[in-house]
């Protein structure tokens, strides 16, 4: 083994510039591969960070309008979900999969605190909705079981509403203002601490409600939506059987196919309850987070593959280069191979020499490229990774952890070895077929 490396080193030493120039192409290829994959990972991490902590096994059901005539009723009829749908969902038919069913009900209203007031939408909710909707509590707590049981008049307000109620201009803050508040810049409203509102009573619809929690404003939802216990809202606003929407968690649906089959069966059951065609896909909307997640994973998978392909094609240039210099090397060393064969080198001995030289060049320069690539990823993290963009008033980092894992490093190593072998194969074959008499005559 040591002899082999000595031979390779001797050969490389004689062609330093040529080897370095070609090696650069390999380094560049691997460098690009690592940086691309790292940046890709960073981008995906930034996207997926939004998904942190979401329970993925949830479905939400919203009402829609029928799109087919059925059971003597015309299409275009508005569907209103009701308690019966909740019972149906939680009932025996789906008990194999469905765990926990929660409904919401709500109405537009006005909230006031002292002289300040703001309009909003009060939504009656259950504790488990916190996880399903990924509600982030900044201060205090969310609705709890006791609130539900006792039908307490408590509310959980979003940060921006709380800030509005505490001071400022008495208008619902616009996105820009909230963005400014996030950044701590001077805005129209005074700087206020929303936590000050916890334990205080606000007036909603002429009744006093105690504020128990402040949530992070989520601009992807209505920014003046706030939460109260479901039974309280239902009673206070006399909503009867109607509900806004319902959500449930489920288990045992592992594949896309399972999920689609379940959705179909579920849709049929709910549709029938509302006298809509079982296959009417517009009467109710089902938003299945598990399936969205699957699709997202598929999307990131495709992006990953695309990056690999681009990286590998960049690397291909380097490999062709290595193959090329190996061919030149073989041509130059024909005489030497002839001597070696004359004194007893078998074709395999010669093949081994060229192949391992090729693998060595590829691997060494590849590792240099890999190292530089990882360095570049660190640099990306220190620069672009520290900046963020405001999308819908939420600070979204451009790149989160733009690194490649050990698995990618191992895969890249494998790629390098394979690449080196391929690059060396044809030159090595050519070298092994050198006939000693031809080679010795060549001088």
């Amino acid at each position: 083994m040591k002899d082999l490396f000595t031979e390779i080193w001797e050969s490389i030493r004689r062609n330093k510039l040529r080897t370095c120039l070609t090696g650069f192409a390999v380094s560049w290829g691997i460098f690009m591969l690592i940086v691309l994959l790292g940046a890709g990972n960073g981008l995906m991490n930034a996207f997926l960070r939004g998904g942190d902590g979401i329970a993925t096994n949830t479905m939400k059901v919203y009402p829609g309008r029928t799109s087919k005539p059925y059971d003597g009723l015309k299409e275009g009829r508005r569907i209103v979900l009701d308690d019966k749908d909740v019972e149906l969902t939680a009932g025996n038919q789906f008990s194999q999969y469905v765990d926990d069913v929660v409904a919401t009900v709500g109405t537009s209203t006005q909230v006031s605190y002292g002289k300040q007031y703001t309009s909003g939408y009060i939504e009656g909710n259950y504790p488990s909705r916190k996880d399903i909707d990924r509600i982030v509590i900044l201060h205090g707590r969310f609705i709890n079981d006791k609130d539900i049981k006792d039908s307490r008049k408590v509310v959980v307000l979003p940060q921006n509403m709380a800030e509005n109620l505490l001071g400022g201009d008495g208008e619902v803050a616009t996105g820009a203002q909230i963005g400014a508040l996030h950044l701590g810049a001077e805005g129209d409203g005074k700087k206020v601490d929303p936590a000050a509102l916890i334990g205080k009573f606000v007036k909603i619809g002429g009744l006093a409600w105690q504020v128990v929690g402040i949530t992070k404003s989520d601009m992807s939802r209505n920014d003046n939506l706030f939460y109260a216990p479901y039974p309280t809202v239902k009673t206070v606003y006399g909503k009867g059987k109607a509900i806004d929407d319902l959500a449930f968690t489920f288990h045992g649906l592992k594949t896309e196919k399972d999920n689609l089959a379940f959705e179909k069966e579920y849709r049929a059951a709910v549709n029938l309850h509302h006298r809509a065609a079982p296959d009417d896909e517009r009467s109710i909307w089902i938003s299945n987070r598990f399936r969205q997640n699957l699709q997202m994973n598929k999307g990131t998978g495709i992006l990953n593959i695309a990056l690999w392909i681009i990286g590998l094609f960049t690397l291909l240039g380097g490999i062709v280069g290595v193959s090329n210099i190996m061919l030149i090397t073989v041509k130059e060393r024909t005489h030497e191979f002839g001597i070696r064969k004359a004194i007893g080198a078998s074709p395999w001995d010669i093949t081994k020499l060229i192949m391992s030289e090729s693998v060595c060049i590829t691997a060494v320069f590849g590792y240099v490229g890999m190292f530089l690539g990882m360095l570049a990823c660190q640099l990306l993290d220190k620069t672009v990774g520290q900046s963020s963009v405001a999308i819908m008033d939420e600070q979204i980092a451009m790149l989160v952890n733009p690194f490649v894992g050990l698995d990618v490093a191992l895969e890249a190593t494998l790629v390098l070895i394979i690449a080196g072998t391929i690059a060396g194969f044809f030159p090595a074959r050519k070298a092994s077929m050198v006939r000693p008499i031809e080679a010795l005559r060549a001088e």
Partner: protein
Amino acid sequence: MLIELKDVNKTYNNGQPLHVLKGINLSIDKGEFVSIMGASGSGKSTLLNILGILDNYDTGEYYIDGRLIKGLSERQAADYRNRLIGFIFQSFNLIGFKTAVENVELPLFYQGVNRAKRHQMAMEYLDRLGLADWAKHYPNEMSGGQKQRVAIARALITGPKILLADEPTGALDSKTSEEVMQLLSTLNREEGVTIIVVTHESGVANCTNKIVHIKDGVIGQIQDNFSHSASAFGTATIMK
């Protein structure tokens, strides 16, 4: 018989078929010191290549020590070359980027002998040829005679049955040529190495004990030369 050639024929097919060896019959015994003499184009180089298993022949039989050398795989041929034959070339054919000792080691490397052992053996052989001080030198730092002696050390290190020398003095001046021939002669006399020298120089041939004349692909005269009086230009020197 160490070497036996029976009706060996060889034709080159490069456009015009060229019948180079036309039925060669030759026997060489162990310990002989033979030269094959002929003009250029006589087929002597082809014969040497066949003897050295560097080339194959079309018909006939070639035995080394009773072993039929025919239709060998490349790997097997390489192995036989390594173990049975030592080569000495006109242009030395040392590997330029290896030192003298590394060049001598090389045949043992292909036998899989470990590093320390083969280094020690190579040093021994260099020492015997009076080149121990030159072990670490590269071929281009040595004179022609020194290079040829390194090549001889390399040829001897595997303990081959046959030493094949192709115009061993072709690139040397007359004095060095004589030294090299003396060396071969000593090796033959004192260690019983079978040596076959291919040459077109009668002075070189005269140093050997048997001269095989080859002409137009057939063996002409086989001349015993123990008296070393075959040279047309006198017996004392190799004419250049």
